[in-house]
């Protein structure tokens, strides 16, 4: 799906929002086992950044990855089937929410380990550069990842080797319950700058602002200018994980949540479009179809539980002698 026009971008934000709301429903009904990390509120970042990418570009994502995966073009029906653990899922039901990937679209995967995607992005970008391919790799991560040693190591390698990678920090103010304000010494921008990586602060609730910054960074990286860092300030409207719908934690003041909700990226993107009725109806239909597909897709056969464990086809010994 192209993200070239403001209407395209509104449509994608609407799709991600609707997808995430549908996922909440399916978590509540038990069709999605284990829950999800909702992306609601942060859609402008995924959509703004991915609108600056070409199909051949790649990305690494996080535990909160549905938005990135959809904005890079994954089929919502197959993503939903992945979340419901079905054979028709992007990963044949093997990965689930935290590992959703579509390599054919350059999506190297959501990731269950905070910060783990950054060096992978650097490596993919390094390989593209070596091959002389004009591909850029985007690495999405949260404010929590800023404190992983591997992230800073990745900054250094990317800068030393001038690889075409764009680091996108989605600073939503919290790593689970821990406020970034008491976790990150100095500043996010300062950390990138210390490695000589140009760093830009962006309003992460504004799709168009994110897009502008991403276009500049991606173009520069593609033309050999090396890595760049974007810090997108944003907010998650839901809890860290759907678990928080059951256990109430009070680490965020109600007024804070309310004030960020007033800056909803969905409303902001809609304002650039005018009448959204037709798009809304199309997205609703698309999500209806996605749900039908996901729930009709067959559950995987337990006999295939070790399929794909090795790319070579190696079959491990079973856990019990027959």
């Amino acid at each position: 799906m192209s993200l070239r026009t403001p209407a395209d971008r509104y449509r994608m934000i609407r799709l991600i929002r609707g997808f995430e709301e549908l996922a909440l429903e399916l978590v509540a009904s038990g069709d999605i086992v284990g829950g999800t990390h909702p992306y609601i509120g942060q859609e402008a970042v995924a959509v703004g950044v991915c609108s600056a990418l070409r199909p051949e570009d790649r990305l690494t994502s996080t535990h909160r990855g549905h938005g990135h995966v959809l904005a890079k073009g994954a089929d919502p029906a197959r993503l939903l089937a992945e979340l419901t653990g079905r054979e028709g899922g992007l990963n044949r039901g093997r990965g689930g929410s935290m590992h959703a990937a579509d390599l054919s679209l350059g999506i190297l995967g959501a990731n269950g380990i905070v910060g783990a995607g950054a060096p992978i992005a650097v490596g993919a970008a390094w390989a593209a550069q070596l091959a002389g391919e004009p591909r850029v790799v985007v690495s999405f991560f949260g404010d929590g990842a800023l404190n992983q040693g591997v992230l800073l190591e990745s900054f250094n390698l990317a800068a030393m080797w001038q690889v075409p990678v764009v680091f996108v920090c989605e600073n939503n103010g919290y790593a689970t319950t821990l406020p970034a304000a008491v976790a990150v010494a100095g500043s996010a921008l300062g950390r990138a700058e210390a490695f000589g990586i140009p760093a830009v602060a962006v309003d992460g609730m504004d799709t168009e602002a994110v897009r502008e910054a991403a276009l500049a960074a991606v173009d520069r990286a593609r033309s050999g200018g090396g890595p760049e860092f974007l810090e997108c300030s944003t907010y998650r409207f839901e809890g860290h994980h759907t678990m928080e719908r059951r256990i109430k934690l009070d680490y965020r003041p109600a007024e804070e949540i309310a004030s960020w909700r007033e800056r909803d990226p969905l409303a902001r993107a809609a304002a650039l479009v005018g009448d959204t009725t037709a798009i809304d109806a199309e997205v609703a239909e698309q999500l209806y179809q996605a749900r039908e597909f996901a729930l009709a897709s067959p559950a995987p056969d337990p006999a295939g539980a070790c399929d794909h464990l090795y790319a070579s086809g190696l079959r491990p010994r079973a856990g019990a002698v027959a």
Partner: protein
Amino acid sequence: MSWLSYTKALNRALADALAEDPSVCLFGEDIGAGLAGPTLGLQKRFGTSRVVDTPLSEQGFTGVAVGAALAGLRPVIEFQIPALLFLVFEQLVNQAHKFSLMTGGQASVPLTCLVPGSGSRDGWAGQHSDHPYGLFAHMGVKTVVPATPTDAYGLLRSAIADPDPVVVFAPAAALGVREDVTGPLPAIPLGQARIHRPGTDVTVVAVGHLVHEALAVARELTEQGISVEVLDPRTLYPFDWDSLGASLEKTGRLVVIDDSNRSCGIGAEILATAAEQYRLTAPPRRITRPDGAVLPFARELDRALQPSGDQLRHAVHAVLKH
């Protein structure tokens, strides 16, 4: 009398240790909020300098805990997910564990690592479902896997009091276990197995939550006239070989049920030692996850790779054929 849950038992052990010994302190992510359960209410009671919320810098804060231990404290680290142990393997195995030998006995590192939720949890998929106790036992780090609330309490107290590093794995599947208890709970020495149920025909060694599965199977087999002894090692390293030996003297038959990977797992060690040192009347059996298992997301697939009561029943019948 009170109805004690496993998580509450861990909570009580931490609280009692903090109350009795001013050198005990806790590190971990979201422990102020008590997100995982065992630290609930502790920051409020003992303050932020003894119950320390850390940024997402596992390698950093684990190394910090090692340093604090060398300086005379008794730090306890709570890890939200078992995979974090992979990140800090260096700090635990190559630093904490080796200090005593490498300093010629000058230094000790009384550090405890607690993983409340090891093993599979529905829907948490590949990167969050390992049960990596065997790795630590292999490297010689003291390794504990309590199966019941009173064992969880008593073993965690002993782990904290121990002069060496200890890793305590609380299996996710055991966190719901409850037990009637009266009065203060005793510490339980490391390295002592527990016979949960005496028997004369077969020794079943069960690790962690699988003790409960083994007990259910043992009860059921009684009706068929089969007498199963259920032995819970509780501490995997150092292992209580004497108790195993005493049990095998009676039964001469051995089945191990262990929810971790087969090759080089603790089950392999138990079978090897039994074969080497005791007179077995039948080839021993083990029930494990497959070799090198990665748990897939879909519930059917996840379950297919974990040891089951059916497999245990089958193995008991198999060793009785000899």
